[in-house]
């Protein structure tokens, strides 16, 4: 089942990329129409921005994500022997190469994995995680992250991140030009008084406002299902559900992170911001921890 899941993930990566790209072009057209009065210019701009982001992310996702999250690399076993050994163990049972190891200085316990494929992957943990967890719990958490690597979740997450970032950049460009150059445009619209154009303009602005939400919805839905799978795979590696369960409980009862990067929130093992919103199910990158624990207890 797992291998089918992995193959499916690889296929899905292309599907997600394609639909994200379409979304991006639509947004480009809307931004172009609303703020530069040329849809084509917007589409070209969107394509260029997206291409640059994807090339940068795929080329060096680990570097980008780690610097966004202020992580520093652990290069020697002696610095964090226990962490290093556990990562080695988990990589060995999962039959993936040893990933690079990073530390984020933050007292909130959390961890994430990133990279493009198992050969170019990295895991990061917070200092809080190392302080609060015993060996079995750490194994559960690292097992979860290594599973993301083995299941190719990291590649999907990386590309989704790049495209979400590209969309928000586009929207920013649009908004800025609206504030700085919008006046001129508005005058011309008044002169022409064409109601059809105004509707199109309003439509474009609505697309621009909704676009980032749509992008993050896709990203969130993608990551939620993967969390359950990674939890289950982690237990398959450690053969010890208790470790991950108590680790998740500890994470649930702790403070949110101080300076996590919002674009990479979906990568973390549990939502770093711990936001409680009314539309919980649509707007969270992670399923509720209690639900994850319930599923683990029934494995």
């Amino acid at each position, binding site marked *: 089942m797992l291998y089918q899941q992995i193959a499916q993930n690889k296929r899905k990566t292309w599907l997600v990329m394609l639909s994200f790209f379409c979304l991006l072009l639509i947004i480009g057209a809307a931004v172009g129409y609303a703020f530069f009065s040329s849809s084509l210019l917007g589409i070209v701009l969107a394509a260029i921005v997206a291409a640059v982001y994807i090339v940068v992310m795929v080329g060096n996702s680990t570097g980008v994500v780690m610097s966004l999250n202020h992580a520093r690399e652990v290069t020697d076993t002696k610095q964090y*022997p226990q962490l290093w*050994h556990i990562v080695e163990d988990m990589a*060995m*049972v999962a039959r993936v190469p040893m990933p690079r190891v990073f530390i984020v200085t933050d007292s909130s316990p959390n961890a994430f994995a990133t990279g493009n494929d198992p050969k170019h992957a990295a895991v990061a943990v917070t200092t809080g995680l190392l302080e609060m967890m015993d*060996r079995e719990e750490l194994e559960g958490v690292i097992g979860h992250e290594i599973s993301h690597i083995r299941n190719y979740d990291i590649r999907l997450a990386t590309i989704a991140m790049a495209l979400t970032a590209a969309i928000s950049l586009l929207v920013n460009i649009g908004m800025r030009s609206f504030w700085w150059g919008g006046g001129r445009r508005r005058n011309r619209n008044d002169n022409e008084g064409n109601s059809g154009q105004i509707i199109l303009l309003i439509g474009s602005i609505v697309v621009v406002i909704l676009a980032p939400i749509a992008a993050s919805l896709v990203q969130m839905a993608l990551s939620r299902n993967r969390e359950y799978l990674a939890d289950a795979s982690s237990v398959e590696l*450690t053969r010890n559900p208790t470790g991950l369960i108590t680790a998740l409980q500890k994470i649930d009862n702790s403070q949110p992170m101080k300076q996590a990067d919002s674009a990479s929130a979906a990568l973390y093992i549990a939502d770093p911001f711990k936001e409680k919103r009314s539309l919980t199910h649509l707007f969270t990158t992670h399923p509720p921890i209690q639900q994850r624990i319930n599923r683990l207890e029934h494995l």
Partner: protein
Amino acid sequence: MLWIIVIVIVLAIVAAGSYIGFYNSIVRTHNWTDEAWSQIDVQLKRRNDLIPNLVETVKGYAKHEQKTLTDVIDKRNQLATVPAANHEQTMAASNQLSDSLKGVFALSENYPDLKANQQFGQLMEELSNTENKLAYSRQLYNSSAVNYNNKIQTFPGNIIAPIHNFSKINYLETPSDEKKAPKVSFND
């Protein structure tokens, strides 16, 4: 006539191709168990190398615990004499050594100075690490062996296997107390 020859040749190529493919997949899973075993072997050697250091360190703090220490040394030497090719016997000796080692680590509870010793702390992490890696490589060995055995015992493997003398691989026994909580953590 020509068509029949072409069909026969194509069928022969397909049959040979799938035979080779299946043969290779059996070999691959067999190699996985070998690889897992070499992991176990590395860890066993590493642990045997660490034990003299451990004994030296503990000796200075716990003079009255000679019996526990000689037990560990005996078990260690015993393990070294087991022929390497005999996986089951090696693992049985290794499990006994793991048990004696737990006795040494339990000592640290009675000797606070020993527990606070930095070198002892490092040795504990090193030995925990080898014990865990042993447990995980054994898990890997067994899961690879299941894969391999399934392949050679089901069709078409059960026809191919005898031709090439592929035989069943025995599983490594897990010590009974590890079934509950598979990982050893000395520094809790």
